[in-house]
């Protein structure tokens, strides 16, 4: 068996997840292969170093504020959605009122009325088209949310 095939067994030995038969096979190989014996020793030293270390625990305040921060983000998300919906509705209403008055105004020429209405319809169609495309991409995105 080539040395490469023993690399994974070296990992299993280091992590205490090696079976008895595999252990015997690996130990037999290590006795005859100085390169693998050296590699095992280096890995043992590395694991010895990291085993003595741990992450620095942040201050208690971080954990005390953690949930509050998550909650605030959740709350703000809802607030943003409501604000956006409200803004869009107000804009639609204002646009409708403007067009209504503009079209009824006898002092504005017919050509200008047609141009403004065409412009507004164009903007609306563009907005709907882009929104539909975004929704389509979002639905097809395999990384959206959690797919396991």
């Amino acid at each position, binding site marked *: 068996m080539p040395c490469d095939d023993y690399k*994974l067994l070296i*990992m299993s030995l280091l992590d205490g997840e090696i079976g008895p038969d595999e252990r015997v096979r690996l130990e037999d190989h290590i006795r005859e292969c100085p390169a693998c014996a050296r590699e095992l020793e280096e890995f043992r030293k590395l*694991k010895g*170093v990291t*085993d003595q*270390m741990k*992450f620095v625990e942040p201050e208690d305040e971080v*954990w005390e504020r953690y949930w509050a921060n998550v909650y605030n983000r959740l709350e703000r998300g809802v607030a943003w959605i409501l604000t956006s919906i409200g803004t869009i509705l107000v804009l639609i209403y204002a646009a409708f009122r403007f067009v209504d008055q503009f079209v009824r105004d006898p002092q504005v020429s017919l050509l200008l009325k047609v141009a403004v209405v065409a412009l507004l319809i164009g903007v609306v169609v563009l907005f709907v088209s882009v929104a539909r495309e975004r929704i389509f991409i979002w639905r097809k995105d395999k990384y959206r*949310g959690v797919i396991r």
Partner: protein
Amino acid sequence: MQSSHEEDRELVIKAKQGDEKAFELLVKRYMRRAYFMALGLVGNHEDALDLSQEAFVKCYRALSRYDERFTFYAWFYTILRNHVLTFLRKRKRHRRTFVDVSEEVLEWRDPDGQTPESSLEREEFSKEVWRAIMELDPEHREIIVLSHFENLQYEEIAALLGCPMGTVKSRLYRARAALKEKLTARL
């Protein structure tokens, strides 16, 4: 007695029904693991805190899609991982030459350990180990943190990463080999 998995499942069901307290319990149960995992990937306290909290927000919004075949943490971990990896990709795309990496992230388990090195040298060594970890690919950093600092078994790592145990071992081998290479002078 209920297993942790069953308790989590019940909390998820309650949270789905709008029980904020249940979701709060889930967050408090896993916030440390989420934070340290994000820290291991991004390298600094502020981003790790921000990304882990944001992942919980995403998780709350995706609760209706929770697949009960998986443990809550394995499912949440996928959200966290995707979120952090997206952040790292954006950071790389923007070619940030200065990447903020906290220095004092690792410490010795036994500060009074019987070693000849002075505490200053030990502190410097822990910084060096952290810098070496942060120089690894995200995939390698992740598996080093899961195995060396979270002390997870291969089976648990495989469940979190959604890959076979053989892949866990081979990835761990490559990650350790790369880390060993960077720390050769100190080992």
